[in-house]
């Protein structure tokens, strides 16, 4: 009975089962190399990309073997600095040293033979698998219950390319790629400060993804770093396939359409964020780097704002805010005006709207809904389809829906204009995820407008305002510096003032070492 219940308990709580497995993994390496090899090939299921090379070294041949994962390593490196050294140079040098046991051989290899820069000693199978599967080459010697993991990572990657999501006309054109090292290097190249600290940890039980957090010590708010580390530590998941996983697992508020963590492909945007005192979270395998804390206004700022003249940058920013509301409210305002508040439409416009609507079979709300949904379908199809077919979509969209539908009298021409305006406005948003939240909210506003007209829209705005005000990103009020209003941060909020005015870092984000520049206003040379 008691046994049965124990089994039951064990089955019930996965944790116990998991712990058992991990205990197995922590098994130390065996002295006998044959056993090690058979264990490894058993555990890895004889996977064909795991290569096991057995060889002998020394005049008094010692059995050795080498594991690597094909495709993850730089083969030249293994050739030149591992195998060659061990098999040829090792034998030459042996005469100079006295090697009597396998252990001596091990020490000799470690100290004098392997000329790789990255060398880690391993003594458990778990470590072995981890290194092996991350692209290191493992060297084992018979008779020694330890081994080497030689850094030999090298795989095909995309290299540094142009960003595909947040493009600029003026400004750096490099983007993060899928390799963590490349990404950290891109940041390092921009901030050559000894206080730029990058810490890594592995997350994901199966994927064991490297996740790095980067920040400038002394500028960052330490509570935020601790909080982020704490939240990362709590993650228990099989695999992290993209930084999106991390974002979803560590954000403050789950039930919100608004992103509370910023993501970007642009190293310059990440560097700027780090310099403001934010923390970057870089996930191996994802070109999108997270920045936290993120505020509402961050999603309306393009890095180009800082590279263009400040007046132009400010104007564009205001335009983006305007477009945000346009994308959010145009269809709902149109519904409200045409079905509730006809008195607000000028008579001539009303006449032509009414004339267009003669014969349209649907109420305005349904008409708008149909058009909006159609547009969403078109957009999604446009993104997912192969590039070559993409243009066909736009032709179908423009001709069939735009023109034929109007001519057939299914929708009114004005509705097509309204929907197009909405669509174009939503493309203005410099960040993709804010544009998505607008798309979702738009439908809510349309329902509100269809039931209560402008009153409904205002109610919706107030609820949205309340919700936005209640959000926090790692403790920082989401709407700051608007609410709470911080006068000193207004220089880089709705508008961007010239760089020589922006003396301090954002106040809520970084409270220590606030001064960031002290250039005087540029003056023309005296004539």
């Amino acid at each position, binding site marked *: 009975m008691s046994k049965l219940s124990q089994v039951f308990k064990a089955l019930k709580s996965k944790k116990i089962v998991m712990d058992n497995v991990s205990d197995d993994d922590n098994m130390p390496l065996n002295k006998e190399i044959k056993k090690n090899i058979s264990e490894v090939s058993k555990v890895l299921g004889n996977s064909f990309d795991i290569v096991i090379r057995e060889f002998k070294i020394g005049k008094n041949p010692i059995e050795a073997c080498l594991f690597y994962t094909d495709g993850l390593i730089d083969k030249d490196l293994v050739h030149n600095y591992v195998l060659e050294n061990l098999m040829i140079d090792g034998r030459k040098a042996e005469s100079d040293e006295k090697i009597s046991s396998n252990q001596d051989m091990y020490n000799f290899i470690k100290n004098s033979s392997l000329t790789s820069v990255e060398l880690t000693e391993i003594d458990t199978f778990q470590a072995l698998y981890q290194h092996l599967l991350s692209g290191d080459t493992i060297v084992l010697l018979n008779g020694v219950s330890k081994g080497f993991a030689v850094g030999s990572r090298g795989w095909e990657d995309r290299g540094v390319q142009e960003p595909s999501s947040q493009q600029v006309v003026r400004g750096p054109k490099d983007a993060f790629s899928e390799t963590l090292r490349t990404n950290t290097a891109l940041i390092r190249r921009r901030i050559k400060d000894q206080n730029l600290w990058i810490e890594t940890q592995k997350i994901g039980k199966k994927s064991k993804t490297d996740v790095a957090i980067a920040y400038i010590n002394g500028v960052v708010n330490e509570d935020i770093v601790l909080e982020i580390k704490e939240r990362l530590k709590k993650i228990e998941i099989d695999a992290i396939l993209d930084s999106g996983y991390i974002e979803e697992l560590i954000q403050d508020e789950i039930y919100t359409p608004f992103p509370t963590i910023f993501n970007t492909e642009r190293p310059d945007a990440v560097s700027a964020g780090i310099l403001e005192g934010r923390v970057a979270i870089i996930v191996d395998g994802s070109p999108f780097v997270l920045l936290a804390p993120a505020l509402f206004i961050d999603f309306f700022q393009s890095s180009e704002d800082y590279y263009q003249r400040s007046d132009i940058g400010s104007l564009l920013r205001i335009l983006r805010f305007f477009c945000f509301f346009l994308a959010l409210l145009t269809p709902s305002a149109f519904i409200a005006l*045409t*079905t509730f508040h*006809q008195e607000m439409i000028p*008579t001539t416009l009303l006449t032509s709207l*009414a*004339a267009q609507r*003669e014969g349209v079979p649907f109420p305005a709300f349904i008409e708008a809904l149909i058009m909006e949904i159609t547009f969403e379908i078109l957009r999604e199809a446009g993104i997912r389809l192969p590039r070559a077919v993409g243009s066909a979509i736009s032709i179908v969209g423009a001709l069939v829906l735009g023109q034929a539908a109007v001519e057939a009298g299914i929708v009114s021409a004005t509705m097509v204009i309204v929907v197009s305006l909405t669509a174009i406005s939503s493309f203005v948003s410099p960040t993709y995820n804010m544009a998505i939240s607008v798309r979702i909210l738009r439908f809510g506003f349309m*329902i509100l407008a269809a*039931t209560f*007209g402008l009153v409904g829209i205002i109610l919706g705005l107030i609820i949205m305002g309340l919700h936005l005000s209640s959000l926090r990103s790692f403790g920082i009020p989401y709407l700051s510096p608007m609410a709470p209003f911080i006068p000193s941060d207004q220089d880089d909020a709705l508008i961007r003032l010239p760089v020589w005015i922006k003396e301090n870092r954002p106040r809520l984000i970084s409270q220590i070492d606030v001064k960031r520049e002290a250039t005087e206003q540029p003056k023309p040379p005296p004539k």
Partner: protein
Amino acid sequence: MKKNGSKALLLFMTIFLLTGCWSSRELSDLAVVTALGIDKHEDGYKLTVQVMDPGEIAGKDLTTRTSVTTYSMTGKTVFEALRRLTVTTPRKLYLSHLRIILLGQEFSEGGISQSLDFISRDHEMRLEFSLMITKNMEAEKALKILTPIEKIPANKIYSSLQTAQDNWAPAKIVELDELVSSLTVPGKEAVLTGLSAVGSPEVGAQIENVEVVDSHTIVNIDEIGVFKDDKLVGWFNENESKGFNYITDNVRNTIGWVECGKEEEGTISVEVTKNETKLKGSIDSNLPKITIETTIEANIADVECAIDVYDQSKIKEIEGKLKKKIEEIIKESIGKAKELNSDVFGFGQVLSRQEPKQWKQLKDNWDKEFADLDIEVKVKFNIRGTGTITETLLGNMK
């Protein structure tokens, strides 16, 4: 977990949202009323609405149907008549885009105040429509006359009225709030501009009326009708209407002409570009007195005699003549008002503002006081420009 309560509330809200839509109406379900006519009828009122047909005005394929339709109905009250109209109209009448309310002459003579209550109480009514009286005809007939150029007759009437007020002077746009306050505030009587038809209204109601170059029947902005209390008691003629507008500081741009002089035959016209009138009230030993001070600026627009407008003395002379003429117009207007015993200029109000204490005694007896009111007219006339040419063509004729 934290947000569950709010979620339940939102759910609650959605239920209501989905059952909502009480006040919504589609554009295609509206009959947009552009003009309203009120006439007297033995049952009470006869209400006529002019409804536009948007498809005929802004649609893609225009037919030969008329762009507006009128419906008439009688009722004990205005509201009843309006609601009873639903038995004949295809859609619900929508009043927010009303441009004009026409009051029949006969109806106006019998008193208008009862019918105005609905108009100012109804939430759909806005303030920017104008009220007018149809002179010598029923409002119903006037609303049926089709007009060329403007497809909606109500718009035609409204814009004619506006242009006439802005450029000609003997007309006045009276909106509801002004009319209501004239009817209720002591010391001021109401006026409304008249509307008349030239030609037979019956012919004007046919589509042929807009199919010919020279329309058989046209609607005209007429002179200003004078009310006493809420009853129409008489009409100003053109000059008196102009005088009225001078006194009430309602002249934006108009013209005036005078004879050139003894030697030269012909007339000279000026375009009045600016007019400012100040009314001053004073009470001396219980005798009220009103001073009208008008300052007019004008440009010479048309010289039809051989006069040298380059001569300062001549200009002074013309100014003198114009000044006298305007004084006459103003006095004529006052004379007529006194004759009708209706203080349309609001002299009583002027006194109530400037001499509030004595006004209290005058208030109850104002009709009588107005008849013997001492009114002084001071006109200043300045000619500023002479147009684009200096010398007249006539002076240089061979």
